């Protein structure tokens, strides 16, 4: 018992270190996000200096009449909504990725594991190929089709994976993967049926994920969904931790596991559906971001969820800049860039981690 004072000191010390570290990380990410947003608005086919960006944005926010002209149009109507959409979609994917990995207790899970994105793709492709919607590419008709497809896939997974009231992680994964493959098959069939090259390109762009459709009207709904989703998930952060150890442990801690899984399934699926509806299935963000964040701040969901959301936002804002400036004449689909950057990064980090342990 003579060692008690020292132990107490050591304990306080390391608790403070972990807490301080995640606060620092959160601050750094916030700064990076702000810088990224400004850069994202500056950079493009026409460069707008950051100073001018600030004054235009500040003008709009403060309700001062903006100086009309091309810079105002480019900044306020095109690039600000696009940069914000990148941040919103990235935050959502990071958040959903962390939650889904806890939901199915599998670190290889990502937001698209449960088939929702395949349903969205099928819905979107159906709109493009069958011409069911009159909206232009990535217009309203497309997003609606995608969201309906996502809901359809979610309903299928819900109906087929259910046993009684509950969902076992394994059944969820198997059902999700199976339905995802089935819907992807239907999508491929639709694409093959079309002979129009322009349509095929449009479909490909959609399947890869793209932020081309960004306008103010498109940003609002996903932003609200991400904020609500974050609040709902963060409120369950302790329960998510318990779920990592196992269903029995969680039950013993007073968590209603059956209900929690149902809630998580609904929240993550709806959120994924909304995100995919506005941006297509941008890959790797939802898988990679939670992993990287766990390496930095640990696996406690009370810290992991907000940090994943911030990091996802930063990542997509930066990647969107790269996707727009990488090729001279043409924009690269953002999903191509996330895969090219994401996969090696993930492999490198995991390898380093294996070596450390």
């Amino acid at each position, binding site marked *: 018992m003579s060692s008690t004072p020292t132990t107490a000191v050591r*304990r306080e010390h390391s608790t403070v270190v972990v807490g301080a570290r995640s606060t620092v990380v959160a601050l750094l990410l916030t700064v990076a996000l702000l810088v990224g947003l400004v850069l994202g608005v500056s950079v493009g086919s026409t460069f707008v200096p950051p100073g001018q960006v600030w004054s235009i944005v500040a003008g709009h926010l403060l309700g001062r009449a903006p100086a009309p002209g091309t810079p105002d149009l480019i900044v306020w109507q095109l690039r600000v909504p696009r940069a914000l959409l990148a941040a919103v979609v990235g935050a959502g994917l990071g958040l959903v990725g962390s939650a889904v990995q806890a939901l199915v*207790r599998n670190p290889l899970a990502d937001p698209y594991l449960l088939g929702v994105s395949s349903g969205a793709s099928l819905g979107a492709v159906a709109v493009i190929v069958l011409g069911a919607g009159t909206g232009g590419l990535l217009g309203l008709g497309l997003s609606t089709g995608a969201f309906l497809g996502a809901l359809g896939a979610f309903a299928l997974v819900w109906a087929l994976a259910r046993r009684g009231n509950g969902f076992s992680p394994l059944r969820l994964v198997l059902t999700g993967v199976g339905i995802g493959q089935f819907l992807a098959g239907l999508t491929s069939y639709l694409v093959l049926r079309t002979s129009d090259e322009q349509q095929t390109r449009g479909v490909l762009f959609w399947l890869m994920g793209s932020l081309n459709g960004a306008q103010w009207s498109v940003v609002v709904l996903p932003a609200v969904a991400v904020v609500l989703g974050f609040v709902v998930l963060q409120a369950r952060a302790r329960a998510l931790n318990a779920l990592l*150890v*196992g269903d*029995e*442990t969680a039950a013993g*801690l007073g968590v209603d596991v059956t209900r929690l899984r149902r809630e998580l399934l609904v929240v993550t699926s709806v959120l994924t559906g909304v995100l995919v509806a506005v941006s297509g299935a941008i890959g790797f963000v939802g898988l990679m971001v939670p992993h990287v964040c766990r*390496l930095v701040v640990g*696996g406690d969901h009370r810290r992991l969820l907000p940090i994943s959301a911030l990091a996802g936002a930063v990542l997509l804002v930066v990647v969107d800049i790269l996707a727009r400036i990488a090729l001279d004449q043409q924009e690269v689909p953002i999903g191509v860039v996330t895969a090219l950057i994401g996969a090696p990064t993930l492999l490198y980090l995991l390898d380093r981690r294996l070596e450390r342990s």
Partner: protein
Amino acid sequence: MRIAVEDLVVSFSGRAVVCGVDVVAEPGEIVGLVGPNGSGKTTVLRTIYRHLRPAAGRVLLDGRDIRKLNPSRAARHVAALPQERGTDFELSVREVVAMGRTPYKRAFSGDDTSDRDIIATALEQVGMVDHGGRPFSALSGGERQRVLLARALAQQPDVLVLDEPTNHLDMRHQIELLALLRAQRRTTVITLHDLNAAASLCDRLHVLRDGVVVASGAPRVVLTVDLLAEVFGVHAAVVEHPLTGDPLIAFDHNTPAESATIS
């Protein structure tokens, strides 16, 4: 607190695996469930910590049906140490123990000073206080088990429910863990494969076979040569432990019970 399992029936897809079990643990009493594999011990425990819903019968906590309590409230009284280990998750030892505070916390609330003290005390009790910052995944099997026990202690429960807590522990840590449980003097329901450990730790034993309690009472009364042969299928002598005076079961590792009785 007193915990009473009354006429418990649990069935999986129509088949009853526990049929009419009664178990009582008086305040401060350590009650052991023993029996061969598949006899229903773990199933009984799972209904006590509300992982399983009984088909019939009740679990009473000081006379109140545990199913009628709200789950968090019940978890403040009853803490469980199930056998599951989870996958490799990146939580520190301290974060795992902090889970024990879950039933006391509202959404969005962090750990306050008193939570941190409770967590540190729990770690100290299992001898892991110097390991709070280590990743749980880097621990040995025995260390993990002790951390998970600390998690249950951090729940500050009136009743501990432990499913084979000495599994994966070496001899020294087994004995330390049993001594810790004895010193706690908390109402405890425990399953143990090691009958000698059960005989030394428990105030009372319930012997289960095929989902039914076939014998109950003090270890000295219950653990007889005949019962060991009939229920466990082993040939053994029961003697007095030379150091402690507890019943000591000396197994005959050469002959199973049937051939011994035939010869």
